[in-house]
């Protein structure tokens, strides 16, 4: 099998040797990505912080024994954080059997003007309302900017199956945000570039 080129290889090696500058660089490089992944998967900043911290803790333990060339460290770290997210989502499902969750806010009426923050909240709410696997596909491909092969591998599906999850997820999002489309409220989305 061909060795995997990993842009983090040198940094991971230095972290494994306990280099303080490398540890800081690793935090700067990975913590925001793990925080973004967890918050978008869980929709809760507090839980996302816990997941991001736990994922980084596992990174510290893994770095000294990391074998370069087998996988990208970033992909491994995503796998760790996703597992932690799914543990929490599973626990939520178990709890929600007794207490049904609040329905997500359907959002403002189509004729209401949206400020940027409100638009962001609408999109966030629509993302949260997606089935987990569709949300995971969109988070990995759009927000985390992983390549399609890498994202599919992380999700344990083929690229074709990932395409299907993305298509369904994005269609659902577009339906949920239909009132923001041109005609309904052209300034809201257009202003985002």
């Amino acid at each position, binding site marked *: 099998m061909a060795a995997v080129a990993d842009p983090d290889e040198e940094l991971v090696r230095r972290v494994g040797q306990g280099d303080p500058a490398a540890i800081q660089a690793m935090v700067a490089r990975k913590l925001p990505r793990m925080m973004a992944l967890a918050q978008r998967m869980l929709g809760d900043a507090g839980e996302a912080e816990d997941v991001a911290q736990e994922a980084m803790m596992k990174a510290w333990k893994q770095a000294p024994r990391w074998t370069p060339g087998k996988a990208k460290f970033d992909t491994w770290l995503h796998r760790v954080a996703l597992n932690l997210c799914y543990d929490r989502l599973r626990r939520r499902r178990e709890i929600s059997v007794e207490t049904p969750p609040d329905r997500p806010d359907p959002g403002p009426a189509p004729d209401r003007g949206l400020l940027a923050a409100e638009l962001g909240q609408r999109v966030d709410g629509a993302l949260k309302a997606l089935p987990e696997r569709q949300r995971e596909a969109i988070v990995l491909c759009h927000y985390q900017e992983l390549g399609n092969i890498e994202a599919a591998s992380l999700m344990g599906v083929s690229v074709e199956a990932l395409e299907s999850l993305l298509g369904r997820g*994005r269609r659902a999002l577009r339906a949920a945000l239909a009132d923001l489309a041109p005609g309904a409220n052209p300034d809201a989305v257009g202003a985002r570039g």
Partner: protein
Amino acid sequence: MNADRMRDLAEAWGGDLRRWPLTEREAAEQFVRTRPDEAGRALFAARQLDAALDAAPRPVVSVELRDRVIASAAAASLRSHPVWPGLRRLLWVGGAGWAAAACAGIAFGMSLTSDFERQVQLDVVLEQASVGGLDDEAVLG
């Protein structure tokens, strides 16, 4: 590539062709060049949704979280490690084994030697004693 496939791909992978699978990208780029109107329609809706997705709040890392994570590196006992700690441990264990085997060999060898020497000395004494006895007999008659 036809208009339907272009639309399906745009719906799934978004309006930025750089995010599309490599296997589809070349055909899509050619479609954009040769049929720009149809391609434009397919990509327009996808780009709108991309823009909406980008409007979602960007999660922020607090200073407290950053500090906790950096502190957790120390808690994880991250410090200078040899390049191959496993190999070094193996060599150490192997070396200790060899040293123990060598010590045992030396001790066994020494005990063999001393037993052998003791036997030789005893033989010499007995031989000298018997020779001495003969001499005495011969001399004394």
